[in-house]
């Protein structure tokens, strides 16, 4: 389904980060609980907003919409910025999370 051209319609979520971030992390980081450095909200990375139109994947907090991560990868390599993350918690066992 083509969802049109508005920026809102092209907003994705953190599920799409699993592949790109597999280059950087040894575990599935989409399951990680991310504490936003701006508002302090804790959200699974998979439930974040992702904008893929920019040169980088831009990851925003679903609470305050501030940028928490940016990730770009091209022929030159990977650039990854996560100054908007206060803490990233990866549970020991990848069990079902809420």
């Amino acid at each position, binding site marked *: *389904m*083509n*969802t049109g051209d508005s920026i*809102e*319609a*092209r*907003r*994705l*979520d*953190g*599920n*799409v980060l*699993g*592949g*790109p971030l*597999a280059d950087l992390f040894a575990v*599935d980081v*989409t*399951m990680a609980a991310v504490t936003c450095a701006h508002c302090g909200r804790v959200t*699974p*990375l*998979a*439930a974040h907003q992702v904008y*893929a*139109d920019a040169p980088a994947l831009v990851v925003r907090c679903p609470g305050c919409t501030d940028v928490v991560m940016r990730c770009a990868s091209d*022929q030159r390599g990977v650039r990854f910025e996560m100054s908007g993350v206060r803490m990233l918690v990866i549970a020991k066992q*990848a069990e*079902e*999370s*809420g």
Partner: protein
Amino acid sequence: MRLPDWPGHVAGQHVDVRLTAPDGYTAQRSYSIASAPSEPEVDLVVERLDDGEVSPYLTDELRSGDLLEVRGPIGGFFVWPEHSDTSVQLVAGGSGVVPFVAMLAHHRTTGSSVPVGLMYSVRTPADVIGPDELQPRPGVGVVLTYTREAPGDWSGLRGRIDQEKLAQHVVPPDQGPAIMICGSTPFVEAVSRDLLALGHAADRIKTERYGGMGEGS
């Protein structure tokens, strides 16, 4: 697809498919896996977007026997809750049904006793993905709504999924179903809002959106 060294997947996971042009330009998209984990081959459903970079190639140019660059399986969040102690409610818009087809196939092949309901909004009968897997059976309820054109003898729902349809056909909030929503971004966000308004808890709702980057999900 027959994928060498495939480690097996969990229902709901996706793969990334990457195409590389002769000049080195690459385009990558995420596609949900439609087949059950027990199947030896991996099925994807690709919806052709006329202005897409990847889907026209996959639907028009790709031939049996061609090689593809595939990464996966990916994702541990939007997956079938294997040991759910509540019922599971799935809500799909359009090709957002693909991961749920895998989940229902998995549910069937493993003889799961978890009650599951699917609410599926689709444009026309010809657009229904995985019709064989979507037949209601004991423990599995399926509610379709046709948004553009229904079969001639259709007595079921018509029109978009709204709060009223959700209130009637989704497992009620006091039973605390695990809810999974997949579809276009506007679909997912509208259904999420409506379910929250009906009293479902935010932490019981998982979503997967697709758009330009994850067009096939």
